[in-house]
């Protein structure tokens, strides 16, 4: 059974600081997704990582994928309050297109 684990589940950080969210998954997959969710809202796609060694950056967020270690990271650089949200990683279960989500990391960026 595919399991996706994120840590930390809660993250409180100060503006201007750097931090990394980790996403481990239990079986082979070369497709990993990061989503952002604001309270009461839907999921916004941030990154799609499709191969080993993939690295993508958008603004203060950078995501990477190591399929051999079954690990993806979401790195936050110089955090700002607008980044406060819950971040989910998700792994494709297989050809059926079933995304298995991690439990999410609730990020709070404080002044």
């Amino acid at each position, binding site marked *: 059974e595919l399991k996706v684990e994120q840590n930390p589940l809660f993250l409180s950080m100060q503006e201007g600081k750097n931090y990394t969210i980790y996403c481990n998954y239990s079986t082979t997959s070369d497709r990993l997704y990061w989503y952002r969710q604001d309270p009461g809202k839907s999921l916004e796609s941030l990154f799609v990582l499709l191969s080993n060694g993939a690295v993508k950056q958008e603004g203060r967020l950078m995501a990477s994928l190591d399929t051999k270690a079954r690990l993806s990271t979401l790195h936050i650089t110089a955090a700002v309050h607008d980044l406060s949200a819950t971040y989910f990683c998700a792994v494709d279960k297989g050809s059926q297109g079933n995304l298995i989500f991690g*439990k999410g990391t609730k990020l709070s960026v404080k002044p």
Partner: protein
Amino acid sequence: DAMVIQNPRYQVTQFGKPVTLSCSQTLNHNVMYWYQQKSSQAPKLLFHYYDKDFNNEADTPDNFQSRRPNTSFCFLDIRSPGLGDAAMYLCATSRDLNRVTEAFFGQGTRLTVV
């Protein structure tokens, strides 16, 4: 412009009274998904359609059904909602099953059961 549209955004239904949630897409994607997300939890796939082929997840309760009358529309029917079915229901689409590059999510319908 919204590409995956869910209606209504908020739905209140009575315990045991059937309710239908609606999703439409302008992307002409082959696959449409329904996810359930309970408060402070991760989204969980209920079922998906690949074209007209329906695929139910093994642990999706029989109380949940779906219809896809055409490419653009997909409905989630809850036959007898219980208090435990209160959740955000998310519809998503993707171009293909085997080449899932991105799933586009609608804004969600928040269901309250009273």
